[in-house]
């Protein structure tokens, strides 16, 4: 598990340009980030539950996935359903 690598990708998704790059050429956004195959595929799938369980920083994870969901209010319930089973995993890097 490489929490810092996942957080670094999520951090790069904050500016709109980073999200556009992620949609067009995700490998460019992953460049220089130490990721396992599981983390890489969870990021590509925007898999909130897996990323949360692996210890992604919740603030970064929610922000990035909410933005990628077009900030649709109904995404909130989908996100909390996905992460709820995992409680509060350690997210220290």
């Amino acid at each position: 598990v490489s929490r810092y690598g996942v957080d670094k990708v999520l951090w790069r998704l904050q500016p709109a340009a980073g999200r556009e790059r992620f949609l067009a050429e995700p490998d460019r956004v992953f460049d220089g980030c130490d990721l396992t195959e599981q983390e890489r595929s969870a990021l590509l799938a925007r898999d909130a539950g897996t990323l949360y369980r692996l210890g992604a920083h919740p603030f970064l994870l929610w922000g990035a996935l909410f933005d990628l969901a077009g900030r649709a209010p109904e995404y909130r319930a989908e996100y909390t359903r996905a992460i709820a089973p995992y409680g509060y995993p350690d997210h220290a890097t």
Partner: protein
Amino acid sequence: MASIATIMGVTHSPPLPKLIAADVPAYREVAAAFADMRRRLAAAKPDLILVLGCDHLNQFFMNNMPAFLIGKAPSSLGPFGHEQDRAGMPSYDVAIDQRAARIIIEEGFTQNVDFAFADECVIDHSFTVPLCLLRPEADLPIVPVFSNVMAPPFPPAARFHRVGQALRAVVDRLPAERRVAVLASGHLSTEVGGPRLRAGLSADRPDPAFDKAAMKMFGDGDTDGLLRLATVERMAAAGNVTSAFLNFVMLMGFAGDRPADQSEEIIGSPFLTWQPESAQ
């Protein structure tokens, strides 16, 4: 010796400026409390606002994370574009008093606090929300103090309190004609990105018992109680980003552990005020 114009602490809940501007009935009481505080800040006639805020993993990241940093850029404009897009927040463009910032860094060393500094910095919503609501004119220079409350490990409550004491000693050494207002930006129990995530309105707190206990401690001047309450474990139980509460613990250190003259929670929004100790 500079004088302290006033000491205040408020929330930086991102939706508030929009809710207040739209005159949403449920938030009128909060709007009135901010308006009252804005009038009191103006009446205190400060010429500098020292703002104790944080950065939400926007510019400071785990590749290089300062525990406490003084912004000493010529000016700062915030918040970040993605923050504005998420919550519809207004921007704030303000001068930084670089001379005061430098004195604070230099004198900090003599107080055993090694502040990091940044000659480029963006004030995120931690700074812009309180400043937009309390000094919308943006005509007073600030010195921003960025704390790490987001990326564990962050400093414990006792260190925030000690840094608040050090800042007070340092500010007292600013030139005699200066009138400094101190404004802490934080919040009570809060969850973002965890299972208790709510719609982002400050009314919906995850742990009202934490909030009530904390506000009473400020009103009682109970620093020991605050330090016992604001442990990593208890704050996490109250909500996964409750740690921005630590900026209020820093404020208590700045205020010299005196009971706050105002310690009021209105629909989840904390309002803290300490009047200056004497007519200076």
